């Protein structure tokens, strides 16, 4: 009974975390772009005159979405048209289930792992779900029964197919180094030290893989340098025929992908919840200092470290999104097939050679 309850609480916590951070990513995006462009950004949404630097803006947006007309065009395939945003939303949201937020938390003699399900094949699960998300986009483009949306959907499909390959291959090297597909044991492994002082984070063991993964994952989010399915200035994209909350779901999915990519990058390449030189009982510095910490503080540090890293990568992705113009279609394909895939293959071979000697 209590097992079920614990799982339930974990699910609720993770979902609230996911949705809340996704909501506030829209705020971060607006504010960060504003600061980059010497502006202030949305700051007018207020409650009883309290503006709080626009922190209420996401909720104002959400309320607006709810009250917008939900329009389904006559010529669309109604059922699929309605399904599409939910499919793409679901498959992205479900990946949070295997992301470890921290190590074990001990309360009252019980050990609670700070992740929802400890999958043996967590990494494959994440990859599979992320690639299933594309069905929502193709379906949206197809079911709208509009040439431009179909074009957007097909572009999305082509882009995702080509980047999925690089994404998967870039992780092969990682799996070779950490002989596990289980995300929590991957994170555990990253707590060890290299040469006695450098944390064994994926980025130090697999710099090339990390780079390829970052590019490919960024292309997966379908945001600006790679926003071909959307292509605002030419085809408007796969969600042309959507309005109101359904369009909002597509937009939320985009932001959620940013968040999921950040958590994955953190978990796989930047040590997840690992704080450098911190073990389960406190810090052990390589220069010979020690700092004992109680269990609760250690767990808190871990969760904070995880969140901080995730925040940094969200920030970085938004920075990139507000810096570059869109790639041309053939450039995107070139980058995927001619640069990222050969690089990831080279990474696999290099890793193999290095590991065998």
């Amino acid at each position, binding site marked *: 009974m209590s097992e079920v309850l614990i799982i339930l609480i974990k699910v609720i916590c993770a979902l609230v975390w996911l949705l809340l951070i996704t909501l506030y990513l829209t705020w971060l995006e607006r504010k960060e772009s504003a600061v980059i462009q010497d502006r*202030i950004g949305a700051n007018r949404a207020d409650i009883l005159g309290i503006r709080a630097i626009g922190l209420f803006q996401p909720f104002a947006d959400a309320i607006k979405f709810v009250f917008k007309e939900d329009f389904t065009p006559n010529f669309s395939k109604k059922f699929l048209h309605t399904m599409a945003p939910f499919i793409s939303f679901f498959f992205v949201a479900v990946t949070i289930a295997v992301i470890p937020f921290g190590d074990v938390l001990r309360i009252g003699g019980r050990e609670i792992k700070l992740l929802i399900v400890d999958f043996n094949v967590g990494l494959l699960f994440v990859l599979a779900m992320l690639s299933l998300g594309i069905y929502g986009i193709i379906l949206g483009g197809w079911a709208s029964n509009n040439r431009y949306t179909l074009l957007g959907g097909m572009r999305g499909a082509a882009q995702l197919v080509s980047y999925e390959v690089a994404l998967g291959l870039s992780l092969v090297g990682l799996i070779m180094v950490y002989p596990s597909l289980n995300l929590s044991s991957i994170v555990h492994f990253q707590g060890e030290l290299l040469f006695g002082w450098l944390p064994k984070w994926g980025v130090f063991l697999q710099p090339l893989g990390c780079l390829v993964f970052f590019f490919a994952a960024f292309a997966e989010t379908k945001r600006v340098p790679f926003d071909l399915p959307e292509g605002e200035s030419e085809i408007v994209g796969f969600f042309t025929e959507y309005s109101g909350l359904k369009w909002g779901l597509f937009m939320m999915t985009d932001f959620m992908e940013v968040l999921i990519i950040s958590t994955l990058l953190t978990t796989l390449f930047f040590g997840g919840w690992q704080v450098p030189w911190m073990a389960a009982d406190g810090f052990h510095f390589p220069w010979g200092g020690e700092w004992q910490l109680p269990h609760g503080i250690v767990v808190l540090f871990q969760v904070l470290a995880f969140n901080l890293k995730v925040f940094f990568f969200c920030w970085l992705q938004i920075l990139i999104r507000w810096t570059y113009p869109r790639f041309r279609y053939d450039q995107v394909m070139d980058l995927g097939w001619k640069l990222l895939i050969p690089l990831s293959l080279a990474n696999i071979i290099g890793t193999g050679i290095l590991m065998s000697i």
Partner: protein
Amino acid sequence: MIKALGYFIEIIRGSIITARHFVVNMFFHILKVLRIKTKRKGAVTIQYPEQRREIASRHRSLHRLMTRKDGKPRCVACMLCATVCPSECIYIEAEEDPDPEIQKCPAKFIIDLSRCCFCGFCVEACPEDAIRMDTENIEFAEYNRQELIYDLDKLLG
């Protein structure tokens, strides 16, 4: 390959520029939160309805008709403004003025501001300096077009 590498360097440099903007502006924003006065600000935004920019002296704003000492419009209904107006949005009906020196005065003087393009030609054309665009009123948006048709009373203000 070398060329692509060159692009890559430029790409990195681009993001360094935006990151620099972010860091510098954030620095000044934080200084402002800490109530430290600096000459430079984090943002160039003018928070419009509360803060306003001074309107330039030659700015063309809402029209007004000038009056003589006795309060009657200076306009002599010569139709020059209506003729020159590129949007054809001035409509004048003349009537006889009791003063034989003046001869004509406007019975109706209507400017349809929903069509006006604020070129200022009417002001330039007027021989009597009867029409000016110096009210510095730039906020006269309305909910329907009827309200934007300004007649003699409204223009004399």
